[in-house]
């Protein structure tokens, strides 16, 4: 399904993030009139040159989507050290209660999840990690915090992520990492990229 998005944009519904990433690569290679290509959780936004005929572009995107479905991102293996609970993980007890688990069990399930970077958004370097254990499904906070500290490891719905900077946020914070997730003067600036496989490793208490 391809939907209009503004006077020069199309939103391609891909069903999942991996297909969106694969289609993004195909579009960047095959459509020079695509001036912006932005993958999301289940879709790809393609912004086209103002002179492009949108119906023709939609047909080209349909063909590319059919071919790109099978492609897979290589990705890297990245380990992120986390200290769970305490002042760095203020929502650990609430999450345990919501899930009907002990705090130790929440930590075990988080450590045991096979996580992959689905896409980056929200803020520079913020990677949405999919594959969170089904036992850890919690809704976002009803009232988001005005400030979630950089390095906060948090969960919401089927995803987990790490706040790259002090930001407002509605995810539930269960731990903290000292890794710098984003530095504009580093190459590449973001620690994580789509397709990367991420493993958390427990440190400290």
């Amino acid at each position, binding site marked *: 399904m391809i939907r209009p*998005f*503004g006077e020069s*944009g199309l939103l391609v519904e891909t069903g999942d993030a991996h297909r969106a990433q694969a289609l993004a690569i195909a579009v960047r290679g095959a459509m020079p009139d695509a001036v912006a290509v932005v993958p999301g*959780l289940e879709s790809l936004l393609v*912004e086209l040159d103002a002179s492009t005929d949108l119906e023709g572009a939609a047909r080209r995107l349909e063909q590319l989507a059919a071919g790109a479905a099978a492609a897979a991102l290589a990705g890297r293996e990245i380990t992120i050290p986390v200290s769970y609970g305490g002042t760095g993980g203020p929502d650990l007890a609430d999450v345990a209660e919501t899930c009907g688990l002990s705090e130790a069990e929440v930590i075990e399930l988080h450590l045991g999840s096979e996580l992959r970077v689905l896409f980056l*958004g*929200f*803020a520079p370097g913020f990677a949405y990690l999919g594959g969170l254990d089904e036992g850890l499904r919690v809704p976002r906070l009803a009232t988001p915090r005005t400030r979630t500290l950089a390095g906060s490891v948090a969960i919401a719905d089927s995803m987990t992520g790490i706040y790259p900077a002090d930001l407002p946020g509605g995810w539930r914070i269960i731990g903290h990492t000292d890794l710098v997730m984003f530095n*504009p003067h580093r190459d590449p600036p973001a620690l994580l990229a789509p397709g990367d496989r991420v493993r958390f490793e427990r440190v400290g208490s």
Partner: protein
Amino acid sequence: MIEVIEAGPLTSVQTASGRPAWRHAGVPVGGAADAWSARLANRLAGNADDASLLEITLGGARLRFDEATVIAVTGGTRVTMGGIDLPAATAVALRAGSQLSVEYGDGARGYLAVGGGIEVDDVLGSRSTDLRSGFGGHEGRALRSGDRLEIGPASGRSGRWTGKRDDGPLRIVPGPHGDPRDLEGEWIVGVEADRIGVRLDGPRLTGREVPSMGLPLGAVQVPPDGRPIVMLADRPVTGGYRVPACVIGADIGRVAQLRTGDELTLVAVSLEEARQAMRRAEEELAAIEPVEGSGDELGWAGSHR
């Protein structure tokens, strides 16, 4: 060199196109909120469209130029020198030592371009300031009093604008969810109006969360509370709310000039009308005649130290 005597509530170094190449890493596009006015100021000052310039929010800025330079101011602020208004949308030659005030005017943001642009380092391919994440522009932050900004080499060209900006209703086209005609009518700008977006007060719409997706400039998001937000330059790369409409490219800069309490009208148009409006906005942007002669003939140089 430009010395910032007073910075006002929010003044920063921006570029018209922002930082579009790093969205895959979650970096917002940013840049001038009213990019059309930023491009116009640059053209008048003899710069390339994307030269770095000052975005001055709600006035309140005082600047001292310690070298001779050409400036041009566009957008919603007024500029005075020694208490006298300077002509808007026209290049003005300043003598070394000139002091300017950029004051509250008829819109939220003014753009002050200097011939040669503001010299700051490129970060991730742009000189614009990412105010939320704190990088780019001048030390990654809004300007404060005492800051000193370097000016680049000027082209020597300068111009006067003879065009006209549309002032009719703000036009919208479809987003991925629902019908833009549901948003047609009168709205009032809410308390939340910044570089990220402008919230509109009026009838409650149907809002809901959707799977996070890329957000183009001008997308109108409707969160579960039913109050729409028009997304501007500093919007996040992705958003997770229903988008029934988008403000067209030709009109989005005008949204960035709205202030809390301002009234506006939204009207749905076809994609063809939207693209035509964009072409006309580009034509109006190009309606510039050269300003001839030296600074002294412009009548302002040095008369108000």
